[in-house]
């Protein structure tokens, strides 16, 4: 191997190792030569490298147009058409939700009218305020809660029951209250048989206010 360099630098040995041209000479060589060789085809096949910066390897690693590399993801830019489409879908979704909310509200108002027929204006006001309806069964008393659940009031304890209309979510809350009121007044045993017992606790000195007859 005949290799010499007039301005030997610490990188010359690397150049020797990686260069196929062992007779090459170079006049100026930066400390980035080795990296340049590793990353540049030119340096490995050529005989001289004159200007090499220390960050050339980083440039190679990170620049799209100088070397093949993996780019993780592209910036997502929405076209005008896509933007319009998204806005249209959002608006449609908002309208559907609003329509559903109105329907539920109307259904609840209709159910309340039916309850009003059953328990009268005064008690309906209490029901509006408390969301509870007191029902007298043959054996026990009950409190039906508008937002779900029934409390069975026994001599010294309260039993929380979970019982409701099948597919309850389809019905307004007050329909559920009406159904349970009628069922408890007529077939208390059947309701207690169907209901799941959720919890049991001591009966408080005073029960919460509820609409009653």
């Amino acid at each position, binding site marked *: 191997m005949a290799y010499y360099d007039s301005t030997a630098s610490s990188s010359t040995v690397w150049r020797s190792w990686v260069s196929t041209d062992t007779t090459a000479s170079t006049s100026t060589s930066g400390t980035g030569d080795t990296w340049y060789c590793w990353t540049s085809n030119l340096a490995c096949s050529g005989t001289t490298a004159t200007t090499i910066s220390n960050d050339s390897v980083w440039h190679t690693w990170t620049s799209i147009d100088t070397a093949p590399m993996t780019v993780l993801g592209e910036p997502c830019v929405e076209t005008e058409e896509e933007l319009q489409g998204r806005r249209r879908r959002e608006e449609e979704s908002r309208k559907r939700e609003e329509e559903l909310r109105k329907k539920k509200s*109307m259904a609840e108002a209709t*159910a309340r009218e*039916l309850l009003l027929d059953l328990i009268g204006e005064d008690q309906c006001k209490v029901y509006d305020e408390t969301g509870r309806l007191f029902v007298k069964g043959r054996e026990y008393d009950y409190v039906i809660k508008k937002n*779900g659940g029934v409390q069975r009031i026994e001599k010294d304890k309260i039993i929380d029951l979970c019982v*409701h*209309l099948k597919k309850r979510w389809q019905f307004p809350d007050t*329909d559920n209250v009406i159904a349970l009121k*009628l*069922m408890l*007044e007529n077939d208390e045993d059947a309701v207690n048989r169907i209901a799941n017992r959720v919890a049991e606790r001591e009966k408080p000195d005073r029960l919460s206010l509820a609409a009653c007859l």
Partner: protein
Amino acid sequence: MGQLSILNDKGDTKVIWDPSNEDEVMAASDQFDALVEKGFIAFAVKKNGQQGTQTKVFDPEAGKIIMVPPIQGG
């Protein structure tokens, strides 16, 4: 006038009949039977809190009847 209130997602749907009108009574009776077959329970009710009474046969003179879908434990 008789009234059948069927509980549903709209609150309820009402079917009204005139007890002296045979066709209307027949239509209401058919609807009553169809719902009972589906598992609905019928309650004849009075106004202002008087307890409703479960009924299994359609009575055109019952006044107001509420049809309740089946219940289940949660």
